[in-house]
């Protein structure tokens, strides 16, 4: 086995790992606090990538939202600013979703919650197709991706973009941890995640706290979409497959463990690159299959994943 090639593949995988970790984190934050798998997370994230796209393109009359973007001073934005704007929009959208669609349902059944998120997925997906077309669009890269833009470590190339994506993800994570540990809202959120009813008894307002949770989650989702839009090309179905990887990552790490989401994303990203490279049948196109199989196997033999809370069923 060629070790340099192996190292090269690992480096290549790290980029996707960051994306999966980020989206998996979004899923985990919501599952931990609301007990709900947000199937629409990927589509919500793609929508914010389109917002970033519009903010980058500026006031173009033929582009949906272009007129609206023209009203914002400073448009067209630079890439980091556009992504920042999109993440803010995503957070607002996430908070609104919680307030308008999830909270009024109360503690409804699994079926009802699945219905809401599936409805959101379908509606958002076809909204994007209608507004911005189904064809792929070029989304500029935030970090230089040219031929020579890499570090060389032991003969393998580690791209600047990979390092950059991890720097952004880790800083966002540090920010999240600081928020959770050192602010009142963070404390309230941790309390609600452990036990909503007890949190309510000691005076935490559960609803608004969950809204913050949704905003944080959607922020991570938006980050995932905006950072990957360059490599996978922006189109309405862009995050559909990424969602499977992210769900596999979240399941592997434990659906209610942020730490697990990070590690799960790393493992799934690596396996996505390494398995097709060494198992010819899988190929690039089918690389999503191992992720699905991994997800099923974990749910079957260890539903709590690596770091999740073990659920105990009383008989």
């Amino acid at each position, binding site marked *: 086995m060629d070790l340099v090639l192996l190292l090269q593949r690992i480096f290549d995988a790290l980029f996707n790992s960051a994306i999966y970790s980020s989206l998996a984190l979004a899923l985990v934050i919501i599952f931990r606090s609301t007990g709900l798998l947000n199937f629409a997370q990927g589509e919500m994230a793609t929508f914010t990538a389109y917002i970033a796209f519009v903010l980058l393109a500026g006031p173009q009359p033929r582009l949906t939202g272009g007129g609206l973007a023209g009203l914002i001073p400073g448009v067209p934005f630079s890439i980091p600013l556009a992504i920042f704007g999109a993440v803010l929009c995503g957070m607002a959208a996430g908070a609104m979703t919680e307030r308008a669609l999830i909270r009024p349902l109360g503690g409804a059944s699994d079926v009802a919650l*699945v219905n809401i998120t599936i*409805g959101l997925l379908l509606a958002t997906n076809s909204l994007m197709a209608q507004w911005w077309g189904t064809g792929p669009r070029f989304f500029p890269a935030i970090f230089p991706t040219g031929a020579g833009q890499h570090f060389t470590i032991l003969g393998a190339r580690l791209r600047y973009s990979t390092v950059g994506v991890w720097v952004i993800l880790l800083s966002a994570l540090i920010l999240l941890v600081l928020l959770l540990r050192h602010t009142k809202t963070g404390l309230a959120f941790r309390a609600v995640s452990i036990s909503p009813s007890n949190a309510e008894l000691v005076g935490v307002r559960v609803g608004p706290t969950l809204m913050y949770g949704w905003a944080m989650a959607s922020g991570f989702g938006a980050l995932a979409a905006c950072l990957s839009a360059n490599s996978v090309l922006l189109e309405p179905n862009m995050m559909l497959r990424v969602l*499977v990887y992210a769900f596999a990552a979240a399941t592997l790490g434990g659906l209610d463990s942020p730490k697990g989401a990070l590690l799960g994303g790393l493992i799934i990203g690596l396996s996505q690159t390494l398995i097709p490279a060494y198992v010819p049948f899988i190929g690039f196109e*089918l690389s999503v299959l191992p992720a699905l199989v991994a997800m099923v196997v974990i749910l079957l033999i260890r539903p709590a994943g690596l770091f999740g809370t073990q659920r105990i069923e009383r008989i």
Partner: protein
Amino acid sequence: MSAQAPRRFTPVSVAGLIVLAGLLVAIPFLTTTTSLRQATQIVVSVLAVLGVNIATGYGGMISLGHGVFVGVGAFATGYYVGDLQLPWLLAIALGAITAGLAGALVGVPALRIRGIHLALVTLGLAIVFRPLSKRFPSITGGVSGRSIDARFDAPGWWPSDGRMASSVYRYVFCVLIVVLVLWATWNLVNSRFGRSMRALRDNHMAAAIYGIDLVAARVTTFAISAGIAGLCGALQVLLVPFVSQDKYPAQESLVIYASAVIGGLGTIWGSVLGVLARTVLGKAGSALAGYDGLGPLGEFFDLLDESAFVFGVGLIILTFLFPRGLAGLGRKNQVPK
């Protein structure tokens, strides 16, 4: 969910039945070859929705991936009738059985994976299906699909002739099959097995204590539901002898699920109503989108052309207002848990 299937017909359901039967008889007299084929496709799509309804509405296992079984049914039937040269009836039956076996395979993990996690796995399956089927080009035709070298034409004894003869024959054949399956499902859910299915859905612990074999019941339920969805795929091949993976994107599975929910889970008529709603909403949407007299509002109505959008929004609204779906509109205060 306490969906007691009503054994007696209410006046509303009798009236609905008569209207529906009248419509089905009238359709071949009012249409051209193309629109009759479309009408037949709509009738056939009831089966896919019914499949979801059996797994989710009666069995309590959320399935977001029934488009996969429709696809398996279609590909398998295409293979049996086109490559193996089997007679159509046998090929269709085997196609449905193949889909049912695929369903049984998915049903095995469903023994331990439940609720929202099963929804997750089946959604993953729906997303993986297209790339997976591209890996078997000899059966699926790969990226571009392939046409099946067999036609389901009217036999010699068929009374009508001319251009429409085969279209009418296919229509009558499909309507008969769908009615037959609806009737069989009605009997199934009211049988001993149907009761154990519902018991399992409502409280699997209690069901087990009463001696229901959980493993057998769950796997059988999923297999039957997948087989019926596969039958839908088989009949699609009969109508248009062309199979292609791009007929079965993940969205198709989700729209099938949405139809089942909108029509009403846990009632047979819900599946019919769901398909009717999908058709009516789709047609009304494209009519509104094509209408120019709305001024600046017109741009908004363009969205209605996409039935997935209407369905997504409809699914959300219905979950809030009528949790039992269209079929539950007439019934009082029975809210599913």
